């Protein structure tokens, strides 16, 4: 990763846009991890989700934060691949297996073994603005392999209004970020997913969100 470019991008540009143009309302900021390894697991509505998650943590942690992103989308050309891996610092993962025994989550596991903070979207790709999508099993499989790594449910609201999927024009809206209590592996995948969904529902219920249809 290019440390200087990354610092300039996140600390100067992203913070400016997120805090001045949009504006953050963060609840339970004190729950955020002070270091890695950890998994920040948020709902996914917009490309800006990743940038907002990264800008939540102090700049000193910046070198250790890595968002997980789909390789087919973010590495689709050389410029995009350079920007994604060097500046954003993504961990590219493939969505389809080439071989039946291929472990798609291995790059994420490596990052966790290195003690990094991984931003993960359990819903997979971006969904309809401000709606939850069914969860994929990835987050539960990660928790199973790293039972000691805390998983932080993070509910994001407002980005689906400010910059939803398929739109290029950023329209300013305040963003809500509600951080949940860290979760740990309890021994069952289905159960973990259900607990995660329940934690996200509880976080969403903390806020007041006007209709957006």
């Amino acid at each position, binding site marked *: 990763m290019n440390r200087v470019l990354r610092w300039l991008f996140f600390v100067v540009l992203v913070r400016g846009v997120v805090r001045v143009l949009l*504006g953050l309302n963060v609840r339970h900021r004190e729950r955020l991890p002070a270091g890695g390894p950890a998994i920040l697991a948020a709902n996914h509505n917009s490309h800006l989700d990743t940038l907002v998650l990264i800008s939540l943590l102090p700049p000193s942690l910046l070198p250790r934060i890595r968002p997980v992103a789909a390789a087919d989308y973010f590495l689709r050309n050389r410029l995009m691949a350079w920007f994604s891996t060097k500046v954003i610092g993504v961990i590219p993962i493939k969505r389809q297996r080439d071989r039946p025994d291929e472990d798609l989550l291995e790059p994420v596991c490596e990052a966790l073994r290195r003690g990094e903070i991984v931003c993960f979207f359990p819903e997979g790709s971006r969904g309809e603005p401000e709606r939850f999508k069914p969860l994929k099993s990835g987050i539960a499989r990660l928790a199973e392999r790293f039972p000691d790594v805390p998983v932080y449910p993070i509910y994001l609201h407002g980005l689906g*209004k400010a910059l*939803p999927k398929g*739109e290029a024009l950023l*329209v*300013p809206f*305040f963003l809500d970020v509600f951080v949940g209590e860290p979760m740990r592996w309890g021994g069952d995948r289905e159960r973990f997913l259900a607990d995660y969904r329940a934690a996200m529902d509880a976080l969403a219920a903390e806020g*007041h969100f*006007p209709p957006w*249809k």
Partner: protein
Amino acid sequence: MNVLQLSREVQWVLAGIGALLVVATLVTRLLKVRNPGSDYRELTQRIHAWWVMVAIFAVALGLGERWSIAFFAFVSFLALKEYLSLIPTRRADRRVIFWAYLTIPVQYWWVAEGYFSMFTLFIPVWGLFIVSTRMVLVQETHDFLRAVGTLQWGMMTMVFALSHVAYLLVLPAQSGGPGDGASLVVYLVLLTEFNDVAQYVWGKTFGKHKVVPKVSPGKTVEGLAGGIVTTTGLAVLLAPWLTPLDRWDAVAAGLLIGMGGFLGDITISSVKRDIGVKDSGTMIAGHGGVLDRVNSLMATAPLFFHFIRFFYY
């Protein structure tokens, strides 16, 4: 000696506000020591936020007319953004909402240019026409009336009404009247905010009879009357320093700001009650959101502006 670009009178008044905040800070510290059991966190937060707001306001004014205008444009932007984040909006209107934001730089440009006719008619005439037409072209008729109504109301209050504070800056220079723009702004903003605090303190101390219990159960006749009287007193006291107002006109300005501030406040209370929130946001610790702080100004700014312009400029 002239620090930055402010007149001596404005510097003295700002110093006075600073002194008042020092007293408030010391009193809070003392209360904390005297009653260790009580919780003064909100009061401490509020006073701290006042320090920050006064500092930003003073620096913006001190940097001169252009920066002050830019500052009020930014306040309009924050207020409009908070309002639009709070109310129900339609997905289809994303681009229309963007256009509504664009009225801010245009409106404040008229202010900076001192182009009075465009300043008064741009949002009520062109803004109304262009934004509603843009919304019609979206071709989403479900909830159209609500969407167009709420957006227009936001532009009128958060952009048009608030921009009157900024126009005070260019008013004297433009018409060759006495006094300078920054002192008129300080006069209006100080009296408006002071009135908020005065009504709150009078109400907390002597409040009994509710004025509009269904909108804002905390507001009392005693608070309202006490606040208006105190504000009018301060208006008369400060007028010879900061404005061309003679004594009786200063009384009228004080009454206008005292009453207008109350009406602006309960108007935003109505909006919040309709939506079902207590604070409009979380930007200003202890105060709530930006709207919670500028609600009174949205009413006092156009009222005071047209009062003083009609009689003096």
